[in-house]
């Protein structure tokens, strides 16, 4: 999603994209740092204390944006995977490869903060509510993609197999969400939803949105950095041979 504003085709060669990504990263990283700090400040200090949940609820300013990011990133990864399969374009596969670990990280963050929320609020470290359970399954899907890619030695097959898995998984995400909600209502009373949002004061909404945008900036920055690593890694292979314009690789040779 990063460079769509610019003429993409000019930068669709990995060698051209590497320096461009390098130039973009500091901007996104700075924006991310700034927004996250602001968001956390507003969330932790400015927003009022919740009536029912006390100060413990403040973890939602990390939990909810992280959960949203985990889902968005999965969809975006699947889009890149689909483009890669459709156009047989290696750069798309590289983008999908770069996004996966960040998505997994956000999923884990959402689960971790969800668990932290559950303990003081409901007394249990883990609650089998619909959203947390869906997040858990999403984490499994991310891990599956990452593991599949690392199990296949042949690069082309690894790219395409993990792309197929990402696409199959993205269809599964809404189905999982629906079925887990269904399951939750079936076993009503056994668990309580900890993700029922408290009525939101204005500053709470601001904090969450700021954190969202901060997480977006972070994701872009990290994905670009990872794509650079992926490019360098692949550039080292002789089939791309020729003159390499990437300084790290040239030095390594």
């Amino acid at each position, binding site marked *: 999603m990063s460079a769509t504003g610019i003429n993409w085709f000019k930068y669709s060669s990995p060698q051209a994209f590497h320096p461009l990504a390098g130039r973009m990263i500091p901007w996104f990283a700075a924006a991310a740092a700034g927004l996250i700090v602001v968001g956390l400040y507003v969330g932790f200090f400015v927003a009022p204390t919740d009536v029912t949940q006390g100060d413990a609820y403040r973890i939602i300013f990390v939990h909810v944006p992280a959960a949203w990011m985990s889902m968005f990133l999965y969809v975006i990864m699947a889009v890149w995977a689909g483009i890669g399969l459709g156009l047989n374009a290696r750069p798309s596969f590289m983008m999908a490869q770069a996004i996966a670990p960040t998505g997994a990280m956000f999923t884990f963050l959402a689960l971790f903060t969800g668990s932290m929320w559950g303990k003081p609020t409901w007394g249990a470290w883990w609650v089998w509510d619909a959203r947390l359970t869906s997040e858990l399954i999403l984490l499994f899907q991310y891990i599956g993609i990452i593991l599949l890619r690392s*199990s296949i030695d042949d690069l082309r097959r690894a790219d395409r197999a993990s792309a197929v898995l990402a696409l199959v998984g993205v269809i599964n995400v809404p189905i999982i969400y629906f079925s*887990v909600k269904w399951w939750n209502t079936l076993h009503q009373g056994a668990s309580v939803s900890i993700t029922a949002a408290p009525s939101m004061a204005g500053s709470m909404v601001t904090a969450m949105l700021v954190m969202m945008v901060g997480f977006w900036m972070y994701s872009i920055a990290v994905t670009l950095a990872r794509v650079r690593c992926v490019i360098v890694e692949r550039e080292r292979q002789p089939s791309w041979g020729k003159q390499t314009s990437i300084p790290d690789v040239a030095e390594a040779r």
Partner: protein
Amino acid sequence: MSQPSLSEALRGVVRRDLLLAMRHRSDVAMSVFFVVIVASLFPLGVGPEPAVLRMIASGVLWVTALLACLLSLGRLFTADYLDGVLEQTLLIPQPLGVLVVGKVFSHWVISGLPVVLLSPLLGLQFGLSGESLWVLTLSLLLGTPTLSMIGAIGAALTLGLRGSGLLVALLVLPLFIPVLIFGAGAVTNSLAGIGSEANLSLLGACFLFSLTFAPWATAVALRIALE
């Protein structure tokens, strides 16, 4: 230039697999014995109180059937891959998705259908009776082919990889979860006296959905694996 018709090709694929299964009748028995043994583990682990067993019956029996399906996935394509028959199947001038349905069907007849037929007995072991037994069988009848079709995608993606047994499980279990929820939910509902039609309809929908899309995804994955 000669071309088999679609039904000829399908029949050929199914017939070969069923013929092979008849030569290896132990394959059929393996699924059955696995389910029986694993289902027996739970009372041994949890205790034999009938009330508890009735409560966990739907989940245990469904998870057992699911695991049996998962373990049998290794046999779906691997043998054909190793002796070159899969390569030849990819070269048949008919849509690969249809041939995949044929393969999954014969695989289900060998591994899944015996479990479905055995399920009433297992249900009795767990204290199910009457309508819930019937619902259990029906849910497995709809669910196990769905699981086989979805599992085929994982089997195709991990074809020939080392450690593929565990990897297939990791890839495919998230995809199995909706089927598990609806299937076990059907039996739970019927035990609770609430109607199970909703769950069974959802199971049917999952079956149709997987029948439409999973073979195509499996075909793509097979072509990728055989490049």
